[in-house]
């Protein structure tokens, strides 16, 4: 049994790392133009955000349209950190957000343990507690961060510029993802108690609210460098193929491992039948929250990576119309299929930005958005389970454990067996 898993893992990592190396070499040699390299990086980013959504919708059954909002939060958070470092040589953004993330995160974990013990606490009351704690600690985080930033500035300035930027970048990506996760916890806490369609529309509302806030990020939120609806420029373009690939691999392995553990089965049981799951001792609310936060973490991660691809962010990129993109990718690839999601995520930008641009005659670029909904409709009519359905590559597939020999003796001990057998025969 373990031998087979090992072979599958070897095959999987061999093929994927081979793919990575081939693409990397093609980039270095110059065969792959920057345009197509960007499409590949975009594909990986879409894969991460869509895997997050597949966790929430495909495996946990919560119809969320809020994925793009968390993507936006991750993007702007990380961009703000690296922007301040490269353009203002200041680590204030990094330290302030780091301390906010750490303090609020710790508070959420502690409160979660404490409030979980209360019998019959309603979601809004719990939300109030979390919100007050988060606000209070965010203020504290800002103060601490501003103090810590000063010595850190000189430390990082002493390092070679490339290394310092890389450190700031990686931290920024992780902080962006964590901020998205924490916001999703606060938002999800009350909203996850709603029924499926209502949850969908509330999360859609979240995406719209985030977009409107970003439109006014300079005036309402006070982040002048984000420049509101004019778009944020000057973000270092440091997301290379290496980074997106590395994070995508981590996300795939995390998703795969989680799904093939008892926790993954608990997550899926919520999708299958909520009431039965409750009756089996599964804390449904807990697993909905967990999956939602994890999915949003991936969304934030993807957003943070995306922000450093083009070095430019605009609120229109996080328009709610775009928020259907990950949903469409997940449905195209196959709900509940990791393989399908990753495949569809890579195909998506390649077809929409690459292929359709090539095959449509010049002047017909606007037709792309006519063709792709048509493809979607045809797809829904002919193959509603997505391209891959439930298919997974062997590494991602669940291995059925072998039956033990001992069982045959057990069976004879069970007096019910013969009678039951007779009925089935």
């Amino acid at each position, binding site marked *: 049994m373990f031998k087979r898993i090992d072979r599958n893992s070897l095959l999987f990592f061999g093929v994927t790392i081979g793919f990575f190396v081939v693409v990397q070499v093609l980039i270095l040699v110059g065969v792959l133009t920057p345009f197509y390299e960007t499409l590949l990086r975009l594909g990986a980013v879409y894969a991460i955000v869509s895997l997050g959504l597949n966790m929430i919708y495909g495996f946990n059954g919560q*119809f969320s349209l809020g994925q793009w909002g968390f993507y936006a939060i991750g993007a702007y958070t990380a961009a703000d950190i690296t922007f301040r470092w490269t353009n203002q040589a200041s680590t204030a953004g990094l330290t302030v957000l780091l301390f906010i993330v750490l303090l609020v995160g710790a508070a959420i974990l502690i409160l*979660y*343990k404490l409030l*979980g*013990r*209360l*019998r*019959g*606490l*309603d*979601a*809004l*009351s*719990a*939300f*109030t*507690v979390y919100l007050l704690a988060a606000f209070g600690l965010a203020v504290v985080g800002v103060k601490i961060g501003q103090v810590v930033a000063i010595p850190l500035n000189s430390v990082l300035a002493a390092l070679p510029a490339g290394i310092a930027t890389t450190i700031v970048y990686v931290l920024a990506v992780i902080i962006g993802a964590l901020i998205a996760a924490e916001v999703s916890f606060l938002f999800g*806490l*009350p*909203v996850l*108690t*709603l029924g499926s*369609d*209502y949850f*969908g*529309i*509330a999360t*859609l*509302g*979240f995406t*719209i*609210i985030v977009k*409107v*806030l970003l*439109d*006014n990020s300079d*005036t*309402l939120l006070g982040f002048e460098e984000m420049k509101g609806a004019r778009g944020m420029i000057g973000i270092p373009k440091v997301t290379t193929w290496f980074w997106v690939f590395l994070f995508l691999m981590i996300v795939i392995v995390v998703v795969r491992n989680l799904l093939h553990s008892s926790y993954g089965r608990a997550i899926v049981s919520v999708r299958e039948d909520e*009431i039965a799951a409750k009756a089996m001792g599964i*804390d449904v*609310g*807990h697993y909905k*929250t967990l999956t939602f936060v994890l999915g949003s973490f991936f969304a934030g991660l993807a957003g943070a990576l995306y922000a450093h691809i083009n070095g430019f962010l605009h609120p229109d990129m996080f328009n*709610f*119309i775009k928020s*259907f993109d990950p*949903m*469409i990718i997940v*449905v195209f690839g196959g709900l509940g299929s990791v393989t399908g999601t990753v495949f569809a995520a890579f195909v998506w930008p390649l077809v929409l930005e690459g292929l359709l641009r090539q095959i449509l005659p010049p002047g017909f670029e*606007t*037709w792309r*958005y*006519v063709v*792709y*909904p048509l493809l*979607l*409709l045809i797809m*829904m*009519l002919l193959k*509603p389970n997505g391209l891959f359905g439930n298919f997974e590559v062997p590494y991602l597939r669940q291995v059925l454990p072998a039956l033990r020999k001992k069982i045959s003796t057990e069976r004879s001990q069970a007096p019910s067996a013969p009678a039951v057998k007779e009925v089935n025969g």
Partner: protein
Amino acid sequence: MNSTKAVSPTPSFIEMLVRRRVLRTFFLVFLVAVVVWRIGTALWANPTLFLQQVIDGLRLGFVYALIALGYTMVYGIVRLINFAHGDVFMIGAFMSYLAIARVQLHLWPTKVFPGISPVLASGIGSITVILLSMAVCALAAITIERVAYKPLRSAPRISALITAIGVSFFLEYFGALDFVFTPNFITYKRPFDVTTWVFGSGGVQALVPGQAIPENTVTFSNISIIIVIATIFLLVVLQYIVTQTKIGKAMRATAYDQQTARLMGINVNGIISVTFAIGAGLAGAAGMLYAIAFPQVTFLMGVLPGLKAFVAAVLGGIGSIPGAFVGALIMGQAEVLSAAYISTPMRDAIAFTILIVVLLVRPTGIFGEAQREKA
């Protein structure tokens, strides 16, 4: 919300806090207090301005109501969030634009009966245009329903939802093509002249074009009156159809239980098409009225009003016709008042904030029926 830890005895004070939902009440009271305080101070500072906002909000709310009805009816009968509904609204606006600007359909009474009085002529002309928009939208909706939704009726709900999103995108970007509606903003030509009245200390006066609006007065135009009258008329017709006619009865039966309705000899597919058609007709009318009120049309114009109308339908309790109407009025007020007194750019966000808060307090909306969880 709960950890998997076993329950341990808690101090009685905290238990009391939990049982009485003190924090929840505190939170909601705080929210309501902020809103009341903002509105109260606004009303105190400038009552006429406030009244003006309320009138503008009503105008918007009535248009939303027409769109929301289509959402609520379709959802009630096939449990589908018909994302394409907002784009049907857009088609309605464009149809009326084409009829007026290209064909000059609104002028036919004066051409056919040269001696007709101008008021009657523009009235009949406008009604013709609105009926045309409604008919085109109804036709479009039936086509959409037959081609895209009907084959998926037994498929998982997500398939239909994704299809609805696909149809929505298709309508938008097909409309954006150069030979269809073009990707530009187009100025809408109203089928009648706007008359504005000023209501102030000097009574009601018609505003002469070019005249500045006097201080401390409330203005309203024939547009608002037309929107309110048209909406109420259509609502009454709809209410009549749903409650008094055979088709309405069949619609309600289908919404309640499709399977049984079919067994009772109701043509369920036909009824679903009729529902789509009626909803789309209302959206078509709304499209024209909206374009008259805010005279600009573009291929994406249906997206946000559509969404807000859907929010209104959810707010009122989806599936409920009076609910959609009340929800839409709330939505209109919320949008206009928040734009005026809280933050103009946040107007779109506030609609959804209200939705989320209302859903948390009353998960089935204001008029929604409580659905018992089945074990």
